[in-house]
């Protein structure tokens, strides 16, 4: 059982890290602000979400699991809002 859980953690955290790396590469390489935002959201939403899923089997209590999920939810709320704000500013400056 524990091997299965360990494997789950390894797979999910690795894929999560891949999304973080991909998001960072996109942030550095993409040509303009909107595409960079697009790359960043992959790191926040998918990367962090996958890492949280990967860490869930390793927590000591249900409260800790809830805290991890709450952290992810708060990051989602914050990052989606800041992306919106940045994108709006870009559009306003372009028009």
């Amino acid at each position: 059982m524990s091997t299965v859980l360990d494997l789950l953690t390894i797979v999910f955290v690795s894929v999560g890290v891949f999304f973080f790396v991909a998001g960072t590469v996109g942030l550095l390489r993409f040509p303009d602000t909107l595409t960079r935002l697009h790359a960043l959201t992959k790191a926040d939403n998918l990367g962090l979400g996958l890492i949280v899923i990967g860490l869930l089997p390793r927590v000591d209590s249900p409260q800790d699991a809830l805290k991890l999920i709450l952290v992810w939810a708060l990051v989602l709320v914050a990052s989606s809002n800041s992306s919106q704000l940045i994108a709006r500013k870009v559009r306003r400056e372009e028009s």
Partner: protein
Amino acid sequence: MNTDLIFCMGLALLILGVAVFVVGSREPFPAVVGFVIFGLLVSIAWMCLSAPDVALTEAAIGGGVTGALLLVATARLGDSSKKGQKTKTPMGFHGLVILLCVAVSAGLIAVVLTFPEPAPTLALVALEPLESTGVKNPVTAVLLAYRALDTLLETVVVLLAMAGVWSLAKDSDWSKTPLFGYSPEPGGPLVLLAKVLIPVGVIFGIYMVWTGSDHPGGKFQGAAILAAMGILGLVAGVTSVPAVTNAKLRWLLVLGPAVFLVVGLMGFLSVGYFLAWPPGLSKAVIVLIEVALTPSLALMLGLLVAGPPRQLPTSNS
């Protein structure tokens, strides 16, 4: 252990890199963003050093409130710095700064390298009378029992700083409310963020104060979170600040320091010293002071960021 070391080394390099970026950046805005990231990284470093209370304070006050303060300052400086007025630095000024920085760094290196083994610590002295204070978090015991005078003065200093900010207002603006100097966009994403995040943040801020007597946390961190929620409400346009002449606002501001002072003076009657808590009641007294200080500190920190009362310039929209 080894992975810990690699993590900490990476963190230290990252902190150094961000610090160099902040000092080296020519524009104020990226520098402030870098400063906030610096604060968050330093708070992770404090976690690595098993100092969660310091980490929370660094994240809330160092990165959060100070970052917001600097951002607002940057926004206000924005116009004047674009006019291209080059300030001439006096001859040899940069050299002097570099020399002082090198001296400070050399002093710090010397101190770290000549540390006695084992390092001197007051941790045991702080833990010994912990039982008598009734609180379980030794940091809270230091802040509100052993060294309560420092904390009292600290809160008064924040109040004075806020009075200093208010004193920058023009006479004609005195009856106005503190303003960031921009009008919020109605129905924008910030309104949604404010509606979703403020309830969560307020509960979390109160929890942070409440848990502070037994676990890492406390009034300053909790108040900083509450202040952040207030600032978010202001930026989103869903809350407003009353005018600085408002009596209720002023009472709330002095409530915390006043309760602290009165309870401290009562120490003369019960034990015979200023800021001495009666035996057996110390936890109740500490919680009372924390609860009274929280709204005052939250308002002070929020109003520090909001700035002096002023009227929005009507010319630019």
